[in-house]
């Protein structure tokens, strides 16, 4: 019996130890795995326009896309090393930063506008923020929507007067249709069906105007970034092309994104809404990635730690280390 116990414990220890020595292979990268959101964004457009595949074909690398509902699961996949890039809301990026995931923020896909917002049901009697008191409001926790909602509630002194429900975007639509909730802060495409019998109380565009910026960002896994800095710049260059075109002639980009997501042109257009696709030049010239955005992440981190959703507020230095702006700086004038 004692022998068996000994053997078992050895096995346990061995398993524990072998699990930790992460296999660092020096093999050449042959595949890049990109975690994407199910939205018509720059990744969707440059995928449809073959920018991404052309680039990686040239490098003899296969591209694999993996869909995530939000950055929550993308973060888990980054930890386990199952993906190399992930697009997510900046709040999930703050979570990644404070939980010390080995990853860097390299790109801002879009600054959110009216593609995220707080919808209330028509005829529910909610006309102003004060009417929200006592209501059930749904939002996907840890998302940019959640953060924007909390900021709004705090501003109107409603933080402890409403009950917040954590739901995935599809569940929000189901609960809305059943009449379980009369308010929700969420993003497109789930907003469209809800706006049929509801209206916006506030959108992330309003918050943006009040200098509370939320954005979708791209993180790269640390191991991948250190090994393949060239591929990181390469991918960002392709995404930047979509951003440049979006500002020159949005029709091409929106059409491409709509095709990729199986949407009509008008659907894609309304889902993109007033979100801003900054070019690398704009990010550099307006000091967006070096000053404005880090400041916003700092505010976000501070707020999230006050809400005890993360265990400490990231310092400015931590944030600056987390944002690898050299890639965007390199692209600069492209």
């Amino acid at each position: 019996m004692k022998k068996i116990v000994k053997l078992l414990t050895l096995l346990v220890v061995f398993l524990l130890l072998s699990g930790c020595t992460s296999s660092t292979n020096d093999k050449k990268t042959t595949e890049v795995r990109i975690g994407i959101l199910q939205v018509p964004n720059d990744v969707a457009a440059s995928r449809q326009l073959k920018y991404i595949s052309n680039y990686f074909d040239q490098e003899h690398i296969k591209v694999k896309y993996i869909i995530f509902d939000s950055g929550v699961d993308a973060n888990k996949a980054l930890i386990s090393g199952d993906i190399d890039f992930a697009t997510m809301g900046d709040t999930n990026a703050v979570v990644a930063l404070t939980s010390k995931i080995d990853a860097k923020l390299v790109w801002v896909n879009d600054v959110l506008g009216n593609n995220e917002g707080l919808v209330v049901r028509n005829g529910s009697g909610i006309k102003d923020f004060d009417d929200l008191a006592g209501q059930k409001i749904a939002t996907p926790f840890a998302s940019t929507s959640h953060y924007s909602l909390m900021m709004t509630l705090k501003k109107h002194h409603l933080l402890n007067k409403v009950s917040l429900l954590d739901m995935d975007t599809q569940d929000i639509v189901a609960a809305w249709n059943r009449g379980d909730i009369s308010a929700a802060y969420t993003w497109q495409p789930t907003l469209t069906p809800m706006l049929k019998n509801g209206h916006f109380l506030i959108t992330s565009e309003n918050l943006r105007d009040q200098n509370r910026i939320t954005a979708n960002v791209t993180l790269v896994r640390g191991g991948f970034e250190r090994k393949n800095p060239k591929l990181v710049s390469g991918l960002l260059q392709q995404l930047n092309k979509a951003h440049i075109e979006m500002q020159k002639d949005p029709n091409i980009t929106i059409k491409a994104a709509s095709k990729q997501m199986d949407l009509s042109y008008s659907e894609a257009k309304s889902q993109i809404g007033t979100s801003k696709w900054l070019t690398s030049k704009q990010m550099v010239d307006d000091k967006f990635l070096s000053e404005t955005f880090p400041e916003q992440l700092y505010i976000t981190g501070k707020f999230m730690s006050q809400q005890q959703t993360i265990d400490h507020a990231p310092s400015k230095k931590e944030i600056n280390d987390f944002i690898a702006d050299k890639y965007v700086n390199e692209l600069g004038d492209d």
Partner: protein
Amino acid sequence: MNSKGKKNYWLITIATWLLIFVAWQIATSFRMVPEILLPSPEKVVSTFVKLSEYGYNGIPLWQHFLITMARLLSAVFLAIVTAIPLGLISGRIKIVYSIFDSIIQFIRPIPPLAYYTILILWVGIGETSKVVLLYLAAFAPIYLACISGVNRVKDDYIKSAESLGASSKQVFFHVIFPSALPDIFTGIRTAVGMAYTTVVAAEMVAATYGIGWMIINASKYLKSDVMFVGIIILGITGVVLDQILKYIERKIVFWSGR
């Protein structure tokens, strides 16, 4: 598990736990594993203290715990008061058995999560759907135990009672029910176990408190220390619940196994 077990075996159990603990301690203090995958024991303990003091998401830890227990126990209570009568009657009356048994056999093996989304559509996101989910998980074990309990009553007992002039009602309450009681208790213990394993799933959708919800919420913010605290609480509670049930069983059906 056996009360006749020798001291030796207890020592082995304790030694196993000690070894797990030591391996955990070594793995974390030498930083062999990133903290996000495996937080250190100290961190888990300090998180537990912090949660007990300040609560999670503004709600005290004991309230999270109580709401989870309330969901669990109300579901088990409902299952007991419905499954025992139905099971006993099914065991006695063939017509009732033919009606209900196939339905229950059909629902029993389905993983509760598979029909949870439908339950939510039917009864909404409130407490009802959670309790109903746990109830469905707890129902079948009690029901099946009752049937097998009734079937195992020796015919001699029933016949002797009848020959002494007992009415069928008296036979049921004074012969069949007590004889089936040990089986019923086994059924209840299994039912609590089944409902317990479903509790995290029940709190996955649109809950705002509960230990299961706390674990899921913490996973969204990658707080592995909170997840560990939640998991350890659930583990210990599960063992304690089972021991309590065993104790009650020994008190009520003291003749069983003699």
